[in-house]
């Protein structure tokens, strides 16, 4: 692939994105199962199913559906009784829609300046790759014709949908796919933008803003896979390609650029790119998944009565603080740069909570700079819990752990998430030094470097001390003690 800079406007770059975010509600969308993953190690039982392509309205079988059917795959479903009932097994009709999820979805629709239908109708969207035991996904339009403001102008939001999350893949083989049913039915918010995105970086910005809006409800689940972006992209002479499952914001520009270059390369070779669904790989490249599904995959879910949404009710829905307001508030405490990073971060909520008790700048830096560096080295930071962080901050503020040791502790926690912070600090030998020990070391350094002391070379002395205590003593404290000794 070439490396020349692309002029997206000239290429006729057209792009819209869809973001999907799981909601942290008490129950699933259409049953009373808890909306979370199972805590069990093994499934309670496994069921086997086949799915068939069903002809649509015109008697024609959808091309995407037929594609899956012709694969003649066997589907196996892992059933966990703590998170699955007969509804997930497609053995019982859905219950009424989860009101908590509906409320959050309406909040989001309002924040996105959407019109809200007078009556909400749940639909069935045909999907037969096995990820829904029923053969369709239940979905409803909650908001329409909204918009957001971005650095490159307004981007419209044609739809905000509330839908059920699909089952998670355990294993995929040529003729057999294994899914786990605990994820199926967790409420999922889907926000789609109009194809008004100007370039790959703009796509990232739009996704970032939408993510912040969803998180501002305080009801977004967190962790890997909780947010997924689908990208729709085409260029002049190319074809519309849907890229599914981009989990990292940082990857969006890369994936889009790769796709544009892939299509350009095909066009150059005289091959017409085909409309298709592709799946994103962690390196930003994509691979073919299935043909692009045609229309008419949608028909009413007659098991669920339509839901009337009175105007007065919409008016009464309170809006959470907007991300812009939040940014302003944070700027005052931690400065512009950190504030910008933290509002965009998944950890914004934890920051808010923990910065009430602990030094806000330290908390903000941990959730942004430090965590990013840990993640970059390949650690699974999704394993880190809020309790881990609050324990770390507590130890730092008590002088039991130096700030400089935080990164090491987090990495160790990712390796052994079941251990507690104190144990890890001890194992790593990072227990903060008490003042007496530190005093001794400083005395030694002073004694060994009389020249520097005489000339009051502060930074040189500081360097010498830190060489010996890095990770064990807080630099700020060391500086204070040296200064005091000068007097």
């Amino acid at each position, binding site marked *: 692939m070439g490396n020349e800079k692309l002029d997206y406007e000239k290429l006729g770059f057209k792009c819209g994105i869809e973001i999907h975010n799981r909601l942290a509600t008490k129950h699933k969308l259409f049953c009373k199962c808890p909306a979370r993953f199972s805590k069990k190690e093994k499934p309670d039982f496994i069921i086997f199913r086949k*799915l068939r392509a069903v*002809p649509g309205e015109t*008697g024609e079988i959808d091309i995407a559906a037929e594609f899956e059917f012709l694969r003649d795959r066997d589907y196996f479903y892992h059933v966990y009784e703590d998170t699955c009932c007969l509804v997930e097994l497609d053995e019982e*009709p859905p219950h009424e829609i989860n009101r908590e999820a509906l409320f959050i979805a309406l909040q989001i629709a309002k924040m996105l300046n959407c019109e809200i239908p*007078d009556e909400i*109708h749940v*639909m069935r969207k045909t999907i037969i790759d096995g990820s829904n035991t029923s053969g369709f996904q239940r979905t409803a*339009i909650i908001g329409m*014709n909204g918009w957001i403001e971005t650095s490159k102008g307004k981007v419209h939001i044609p739809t905000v949908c509330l839908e059920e999350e699909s089952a998670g893949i355990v294993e995929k083989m040529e003729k057999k796919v294994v899914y786990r049913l605990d994820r199926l039915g967790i409420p999922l918010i889907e926000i789609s933008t109009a194809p008004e995105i100007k370039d790959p970086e703009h796509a990232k910005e739009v996704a970032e803003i939408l993510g912040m809006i969803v998180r501002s409800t305080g009801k977004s689940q967190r962790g890997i896979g909780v947010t997924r972006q689908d990208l729709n992209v085409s260029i002049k002479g190319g074809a519309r390609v849907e890229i599914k499952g981009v989990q990292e914001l940082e990857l969006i520009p890369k994936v889009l650029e790769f796709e544009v270059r892939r299509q350009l390369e095909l066009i150059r070779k005289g091959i017409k790119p085909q409309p298709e669904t592709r799946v994103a790989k962690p390196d930003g490249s994509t691979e073919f998944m299935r043909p692009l599904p045609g229309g008419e995959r949608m028909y009413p879910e007659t098991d669920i009565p*339509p839901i009337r949404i009175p105007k007065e009710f919409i008016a009464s829905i309170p809006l959470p603080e907007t991300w812009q307001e939040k940014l302003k508030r944070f700027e005052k405490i931690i400065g512009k740069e950190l504030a910008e990073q933290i509002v965009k971060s998944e950890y914004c909520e934890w920051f808010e909570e923990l910065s009430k008790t602990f030094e806000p700048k330290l908390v903000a830096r941990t959730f942004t700079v430090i965590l990013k560096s840990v993640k970059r080295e390949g650690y699974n930071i999704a394993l880190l819990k809020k309790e881990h962080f609050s324990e770390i901050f507590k130890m730092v503020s008590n002088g039991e752990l130096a700030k400089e040791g935080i990164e090491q502790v987090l990495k160790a926690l990712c390796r052994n998430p079941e251990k507690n912070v104190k144990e890890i600090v001890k194992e790593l030998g990072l227990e903060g030094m008490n003042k007496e020990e530190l005093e001794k070391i400083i005395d030694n350094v002073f004694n060994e470097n009389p020249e520097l002391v005489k000339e009051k070379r502060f930074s040189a002395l500081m360097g010498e001390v830190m060489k010996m205590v890095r990770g064990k003593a807080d630099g700020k404290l060391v500086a204070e003690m040296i200064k005091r000794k000068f007097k």
Partner: protein
Amino acid sequence: MCCLKGSHFEILLTFSCKLLVMYAREIEEKLTELGIKVGDKIKVSKEEKYYEGILMPRSFYNPDVLVIKLANGYNIGIEWKNIVKIEKVEEEKKKVARVERKEEIQEKHEKTISILSTGGTIASKVDYRTGGVRPAMTAQDLFEAIPELREIANIEPRTIMQVYSESMNFEHYEKMAKEVFNEIKKGVDGIVIAHGTDTMHYSSAALSFAVQNLGIPVVFVGAQRSSDRGSSDAAVNLISSCLFASQSELAGVFICMHESMSDYACAVHLGTRARKLHASRRDAFKSVNAKPVARVLWREKKIEYLCKDCVNLRDKNKESELFANFEKKVALIKLHPGFNPEIIDFLIEKSYKGIVLEGTGLGHAPEYVMHAIRNACEHAIVCMTSQCIFGRVNLNVYYTGRDLLKAGVIPCEMLPEVAFIKLAWALGNFSEEEVKEIMRKNVAGEIVERILYGE
């Protein structure tokens, strides 16, 4: 209310086909005035906004909300009172004639079976526009939906009625029995009856008694999930029942439905021993007090027999006999604490000829109902079954039971539903004395001689 079937389709159908789902009168009038019909593309203005979409039939909840299908396929409802203006954008596009598939000539198989459709989820097709279902069971529909059927046997599908099983009646049993009898006369090797699941076990019992000396398998089949979904059990059940109808070594009336929640196999139950034991699961049907007689491994095209000697063997030369009359003045009554004996008195007043009681435990009735039962025995045949479903009736163990026997109550060691159908059938075809004997006799496998540990 949540319909405990696969879906609400059945209710919808009643509304959309029989009553026609109507918007509020004011709306209907306005639409007529504007020349707008369901299916037309319309533009609805609401304050400063407008929506374009296809006008959908009213869902049966709020008649004052207009439902339109947007271009993206989603439906939304718009309150009539918020609408400022409605315009017709486009007349409903008449469906493009279906792509005519070449009528392929069916391969000639050795065996020929008939599929008689009576209605229910299995024989319905979804109208993707409204989400409602409509009957569809032409040969073409069937083979298009389940091409595998062509590989099993020569299949002749025919719709004999369109009834949801909860609405089945004795007339339907008579018609069904006659149709089956005619098919047998034609010399088919097996018959599959597509049927709603709610009362399938009543129908299978009815046919078990109505067609005597049966030499081929008659297999009832249904679906718990409608065929619009990729996950429908209709195909697996139909394939399995056709395999069983054409290949089985057994003769008799059976029910063939999912064996478990998985799609591995179907269980074949004797028509007089099965019951719908779950409101919505695929494996709702179970043999009670007995094993299923066979299982069909549809993927391997294999039949596994579990109880060959409890059923007759296939014999095409057998001369079947038809006893298709059913006495309609028969009732099935569940006894319970606080049961009012007037209910029984009422039936006698209305000159009911037969009463099947679902007693508690081994087949008991409250003492204060005894008087009414004694009186009933003088005017009608009264049978006792157990509401426990599993286990056997025995009126000899407690004195309340012995009193019932003394009063003339006939203990029936079979499922209450089967006893009910059997009594209606016996009264419809035989004299009172014969009926008393028939009710105690095993006519169609309804009495399980030995209840085993595993059942």
